[in-house]
């Protein structure tokens, strides 16, 4: 529990909230401090101006009648107690002449001649029931004026109430700031706990996936906030990983299954060659066939490798602007003689003047795979057509049609999966990867791969034929 607590204190969320709580407390401290400075200053200024007025009065009486008048003025106000002000008139010898203060404060006046000090309220001057318990130390503020001929006069005000109020205010402000800090931290802990708990749930999922269980998914609250978005991305990533894992497992099984046959055949041939006695020619023949089998196996491996790279998006295909008509024309030229040799009539209809973004090598490979299939499956006397055109919706479409047996509706979605070979193709050479490769190449180009019915006429003894179309978006105009 303690370890968890310590871990919690290290979380970013907690640190962030701690920081904002501290900033909030500082801000409230500064604000209240400003209020304090303003009101404390106001209280003292009011006292000071009252003192100034009284000094002016006394100055006036000094001007009118000299020190005696001042003395009388003070006596009139202080005898009997209850004076608003504090006074003390001091003889040049240092003796107090009149006033309700007993002695002159021994405090250096500031620039404006003001002093602030603590005094003890004279017990006699008041109702007399004051007890000298030391609690009667009070704060006074005033001015000391040097009169001509050595007399000194103090005029002041009791500001005890005011200063007490101000210091209480200061205490309150400090307490409030501390409280703000404490509340901020508490709120921060609360908020970040919630945040951390949600993160924890995502981390738990990640740990379980790491441990090998691909089932769990991060919880979502569908508010679309950052964490929800994180969960969503995290989940779709897991979906993709799961699909890839599944495909990998499937591929692994298929590879094992598909390679067993040629490997067994090769093993038997080599074994036979070993046991063959004397006959050099037939031994050589067996070895040659074994080499051919090996080549076939390596071909399958290479196809798997290219396919995996394409599907994993690792192949940095060199996509550039190209004229699909060039690509189509090159392939037509490559395959026309092949078709004719096989007794097929070959036609190409190529529309020019289009531009697409593509990798010439990959596109050619995809088309070559389809043309290979057309040649392989169309019986002699049939026809193969390569066509390039712009479709109604502005796509660039390469299509190859043949008059072979075609692919039944129900199998069309299946044939682009790896290692899927239809029953009637089992006798022909091939790895079952050709159309998977076409699909992967089309995907790399953001295109579409469609299989449909060909132009064959079944009644003529041909198959329905196959139409294989690769559709790609037209390249955006160049700036």
């Amino acid at each position: 529990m303690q370890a968890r607590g310590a871990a919690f204190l290290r979380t970013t969320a907690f640190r962030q909230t701690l920081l904002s709580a501290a900033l909030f407390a500082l801000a409230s401290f500064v604000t209240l401090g400003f209020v304090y400075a303003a009101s404390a200053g106001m209280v003292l200024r009011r006292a000071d101006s009252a003192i100034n007025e009284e000094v002016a009065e006394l100055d006036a009486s000094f001007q009118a009648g000299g020190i005696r008048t001042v003395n009388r003025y003070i006596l009139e106000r202080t005898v009997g107690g209850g004076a608003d002000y504090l006074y003390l008139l001091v003889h040049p010898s240092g003796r107090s002449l009149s006033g309700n203060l007993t002695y002159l404060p021994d405090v250096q006046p500031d620039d404006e001649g003001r002093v602030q000090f603590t005094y003890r309220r004279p017990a006699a001057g008041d109702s007399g029931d004051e007890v000298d318990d030391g609690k009667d130390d009070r704060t006074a503020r005033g001015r000391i004026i040097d009169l001509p001929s050595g007399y000194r006069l103090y005029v002041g005000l009791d500001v005890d109430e005011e200063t007490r109020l101000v210091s209480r205010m200061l205490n309150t402000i400090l307490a409030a700031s501390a409280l703000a800090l404490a509340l901020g931290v508490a709120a921060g802990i609360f908020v970040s706990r919630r945040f951390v708990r949600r993160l924890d749930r995502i981390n738990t999922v990640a740990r379980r996936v790491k441990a090998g269980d691909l089932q769990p998914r991060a919880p979502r609250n569908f508010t679309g906030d950052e964490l929800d978005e994180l969960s969503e991305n995290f989940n779709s990533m897991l979906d993709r990983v799961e699909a890839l894992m599944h495909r990998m497992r499937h591929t692994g099984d298929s590879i094992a299954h598909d390679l067993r046959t040629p490997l067994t055949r090769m093993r038997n041939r080599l074994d036979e060659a070993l046991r063959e006695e004397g006959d050099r020619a037939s031994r050589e023949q067996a070895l040659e066939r074994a080499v051919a089998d090996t080549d076939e196996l390596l071909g399958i491996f290479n196809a798997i490798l290219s396919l995996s790279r394409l599907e994993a998006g690792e192949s940095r295909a060199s996509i550039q602007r190209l004229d699909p008509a060039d690509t189509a024309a090159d392939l037509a030229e490559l395959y026309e003689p092949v078709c004719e040799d096989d007794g097929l009539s070959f036609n190409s209809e190529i529309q020019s003047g289009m531009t697409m973004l593509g990798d010439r090598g990959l596109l050619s490979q995809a088309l070559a795979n389809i043309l290979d299939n057309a040649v392989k499956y169309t019986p002699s006397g049939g026809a193969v057509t390569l066509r390039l055109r712009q479709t109604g919706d502005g796509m660039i479409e390469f299509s190859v049609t043949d008059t072979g047996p075609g692919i039944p509706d129900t199998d069309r979605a299946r044939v682009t999966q790896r290692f899927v070979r239809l029953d009637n193709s089992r006798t022909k050479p091939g790895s079952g990867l050709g159309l998977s490769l076409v699909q992967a190449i089309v995907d790399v180009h953001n295109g579409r791969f469609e299989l449909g019915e060909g132009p064959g006429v079944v009644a003529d003894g041909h198959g329905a034929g196959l139409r294989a179309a690769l559709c790609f978006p037209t390249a955006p105009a160049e700036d």
Partner: protein
Amino acid sequence: MRILIVEDDREAASYIRKGLRESGHVADHAGDGEEGLEMARAAEYDVLVVDRMMPRMDGLSMVEALRADDDRTPVLILSALGEVDDRVEGLKAGGDDYLVKPYAFAELLARVEALARRRDPDTVRTKLVVGDLEMDLLARTVVREGEEILLQPREFRLLEFLMKHSGQVVTRTMLLEKVWDYHFDPQTNVIDVHISRLRSKIDKPFPRSLLHTVRGAGYRLQA
């Protein structure tokens, strides 16, 4: 020919070495890029066969270092990878040809011999002659026994490649790569079909055949 094989896989290296020796070449072996670079600098080789992935110094760095020294010895890069962009990378580093593992020995031999030929003084040839077959590269005409043979543009390029490598074996993959610029293997025998078309034009009407099929390897044009 003197050939240096730079390959960290001893077994693969001895397989190539044995084959090259049987074909009448001298073959040395270096086990990594650093050793290969040293040996290539110390002696004159006609062709270097360099594996791409090696410890200490990989093949591409080694070729780059050689090219930086202005050493123009033809290099065949061997690679276990095999995508088009890997090939482009290899050629950019200074390789002259690129062969993906696994390969048939005949393929390697044909490419090594073709590379050595490329090294011949590079005078710009305007005329190729093999026996009584003549090709004028400027007028783009082909004549045999004084009789002009009409070829399609691709057939012309195919014949040009064969004539430039006359006396040597060229493989189907080489033709597909160099004449058509395709780096994949079609399942159908496209190259054989094109060769037989060419053959029917340049050989059939004449008593002596120039274009020979080399079993298990490819084709050879020879007088």
